[in-house]
């Protein structure tokens, strides 16, 4: 099955082609949905088989390259279109196809009746195609192909409702914002790739990394490569300073938010950092940058999430915050923990988004949680699965989020310092608080919607079954990575599985101080108690004593307004980046460079021709005999010339 791994990429492409070209003719929603889902479901099965096949191989043979063809060969540059099947790419593929398949199935119900039904599934399949290229590519260029592909699909799907309004602008504006901000990051990624090629004379992962392992004394080069790659990651994975596109990406259909902007695409940056772990490990300064940016993003986005009222907005900021966690983990050298959180986050965040979609579906596209309330009894399955996901993301002991988040927190202390841990734990509390604010306002309390207008109802089975499966995964998904403090020496299965990938990077870091398990348990207990406190507080306040929240908001009006307006980041960018560019484009590039210089040159040329012809046109008297006279004179001169030169 490993040799057939290219099928996992081929099937989504086929699905895209069929639905994209013939979807309108097929017309039948069931057929389109089935094709779209099968195009992701079959690759999932193949990936599972490939996974077990790899699992049966000895540890040192688990890295396999499936070479398809030579993509380009220019001078010393040889790029083959090949896929790298190893522990890391298989883990990511399982998440992408598995969660992707569930979301596709869910979409069959959610997108019911939409005029762009086939277009939706075509784009979704194209996305899976690009994403699989991204995670399976065996060199930076194939990865970049997927990287740009997912960016394109993200743009297409955010702008899916292209004729609708979104907040202050329109849906296409939100889509463009996502694309352009991503492009800024991609530019960094490209620079990183150029630098890699210049340094290692190759773009192939295995070759670059094996060279990087032995290359010493090139810390500056490594630093720049890592920095550029990380800039790429901040764009794709919505980190400070390029996170602004993700909240706006919520303009897309909810399954898109679940698939692209929660479970898969936004984790591409984390994947890339983990893939290039040896390069990052060789640049300790950039590792610190990664950790600090991740940590700041985590806290920053979590605080914004506290006050937002749009159900998808809260989840969007939550995603930004959780991605920050992953970068924190990568930044302190715990790449395995970062990937672990990518996986568990995919489960519970996809579930949260799909649950939110189910609610939005039931409430006729009303997204303001202050207009919900008491939905528990109308949609029990959605409620039950949603609350499991909320517990999981908050890190309730035993659920998937607990293990991954706890691992990150522990490493941020063990490999980092106490401040990392403290801010990380604070984020965990904030996360618990805003998640349960969301849960309480949506499912508990009095019903704040008018019953004549809204008739909330449970979603159809095709939507609820994916929710249930994801809920199960959100519970048990973390059990493969139970920390050693509970499972004994080398008991963390997930870590053992990924260990060969990060072995070199961890050797290079080699800075882990010894920490006792007591310390780990103590910190874990503190964070768990704090999180439970956060859950309880949010639940208490938002189901029974909402006036407390209002009082707090009134008391800290300044802070509240600041959070409500998302720290004015959009406004700051508008004033600091967009306006200057627009103004300078208008005043300098348009009015001066274009109008004066370029147009001026062209006009001057025309003027010169005009002036000269103004002088010589006088010769055109219109008298034929004058012309004949001139001709005669010319012939006479020519004759004398010839005769004299004889």
């Amino acid at each position, binding site marked *: 099955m490993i040799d057939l791994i290219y099928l996992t990429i081929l099937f989504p492409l086929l699905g895209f082609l069929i639905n994209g070209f013939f979807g309108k003719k097929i017309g039948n929603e069931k057929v389109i949905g089935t094709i779209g889902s099968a195009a992701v479901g079959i690759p999932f099965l193949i990936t599972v088989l490939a996974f077990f096949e790899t699992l049966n191989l000895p540890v040192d043979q688990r890295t396999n390259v499936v070479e398809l063809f030579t993509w380009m060969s220019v001078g010393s540059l040889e790029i083959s279109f090949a896929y790298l099947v190893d522990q890391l790419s298989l883990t990511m593929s399982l998440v992408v196809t598995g969660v992707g398949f569930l979301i596709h199935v869910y979409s069959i119900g959610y997108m019911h009746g939409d005029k762009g039904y086939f277009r939706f599934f075509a784009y979704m399949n194209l996305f899976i195609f690009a994403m699989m290229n991204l995670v399976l590519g065996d060199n930076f260029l194939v990865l970049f192909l997927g990287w740009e592909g997912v960016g394109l699909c993200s743009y297409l799907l955010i702008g899916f409702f292209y004729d609708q309004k979104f907040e202050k602008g329109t849906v296409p504006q939100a889509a463009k914002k996502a694309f352009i901000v991503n492009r800024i990051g991609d530019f960094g990624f490209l620079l990183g790739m150029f630098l890699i090629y210049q340094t290692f004379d190759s773009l192939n992962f295995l070759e670059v990394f094996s060279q990087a392992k032995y290359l010493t004394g090139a810390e500056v080069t490594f630093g720049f490569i890592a920095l550029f790659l990380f800039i790429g990651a901040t764009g794709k994975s919505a980190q400070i300073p390029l996170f602004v596109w993700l909240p706006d990406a919520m303009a897309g259909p909810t399954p898109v938010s679940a698939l692209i902007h929660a479970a898969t695409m936004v984790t591409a940056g984390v994947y890339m950092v983990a893939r290039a772990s040896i390069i990052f490990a060789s640049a300790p300064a950039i590792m610190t940058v990664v950790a600090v940016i991740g940590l700041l993003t985590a806290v920053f986005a979590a605080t914004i999430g506290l006050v937002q009222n749009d159900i998808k907005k809260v989840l969007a900021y939550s995603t930004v915050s959780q991605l920050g966690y992953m970068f924190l983990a990568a930044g302190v050298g715990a790449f395995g923990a970062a990937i672990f959180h990518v996986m568990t986050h995919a489960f519970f965040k996809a579930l949260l988004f799909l649950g939110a979609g189910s609610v939005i579906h039931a409430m006729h596209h009303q997204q303001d949680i202050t207009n919900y309330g008491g939905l528990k009894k109308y949609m029990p399955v959605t409620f039950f699965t949603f609350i499991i996901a909320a517990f999981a993301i908050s890190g309730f002991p035993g659920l998937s989020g607990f293990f991954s988040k706890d691992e990150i927190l522990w490493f941020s202390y063990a490999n980092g310092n106490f401040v990392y841990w403290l801010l990380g734990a604070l984020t965990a509390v904030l996360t618990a608080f805003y998640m349960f604010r969301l849960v309480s306002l949506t499912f508990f309390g009095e019903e704040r919607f008018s019953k004549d207008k809204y008739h909330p109802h449970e979603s159809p089975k095709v939507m609820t079954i994916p929710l249930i499966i994801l809920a199960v995964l959100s519970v048990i998904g973390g059990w493969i990575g139970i920390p050693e403090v509970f499972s004994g020496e080398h008991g963390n299965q997930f870590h053992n599985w990924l260990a060969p990938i990060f072995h070199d990077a961890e050797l290079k870091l080699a800075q882990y101080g010894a920490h006792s398990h007591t310390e780990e348990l103590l910190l874990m207990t503190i964070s768990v108690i704090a999180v439970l406190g956060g859950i309880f507080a949010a639940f208490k306040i938002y189901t029974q004593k909402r006036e407390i929240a209002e009082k707090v908001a009134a008391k800290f009006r300044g802070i509240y307004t600041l959070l409500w307006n998302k720290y004015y980041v959009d406004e700051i960018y508008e004033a600091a980046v967009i306006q200057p560019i627009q103004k300078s484009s208008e005043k300098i590039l348009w009015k001066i460079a274009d109008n004066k210089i370029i147009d001026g040159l062209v006009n001057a040329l025309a003027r010169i021709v005009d002036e000269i012809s103004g002088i010589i*046109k*006088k010769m*055109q*008297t*219109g*008298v*034929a*005999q004058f012309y*004949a*006279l001139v001709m*005669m004179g010319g012939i006479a001169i020519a004759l004398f010339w010839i005769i004299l030169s004889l």
Partner: protein
Amino acid sequence: MSSIPMELYLLISAFMFSVGVAGVLIRRNAIVVFMCVELMLNSANLALITFSSYLGDPAGQVFVFFVMTVAAAEAAVGLAIIIAIFRNKQTVNIDEINIFKW
């Protein structure tokens, strides 16, 4: 015939050519100008035949036949143009035909 020197023929040819040139440059009547052009052509023909005959190369005489053929065609076209101009402008005075002037 061989007693007449070649220079004489050439002088006549040059004289005819000069008359033609003077006519083209000086006369204002389009038809006269046209006839002067023909005169120039024929003076050239005379020179060609002279050389052909004195140098014993028939190519010059063959060449003249071609010139005469072209001249006949040219005369037809030229006269047709003059008639067309006359119908438009009621004159064949080339001083008044200056529509190409800037």
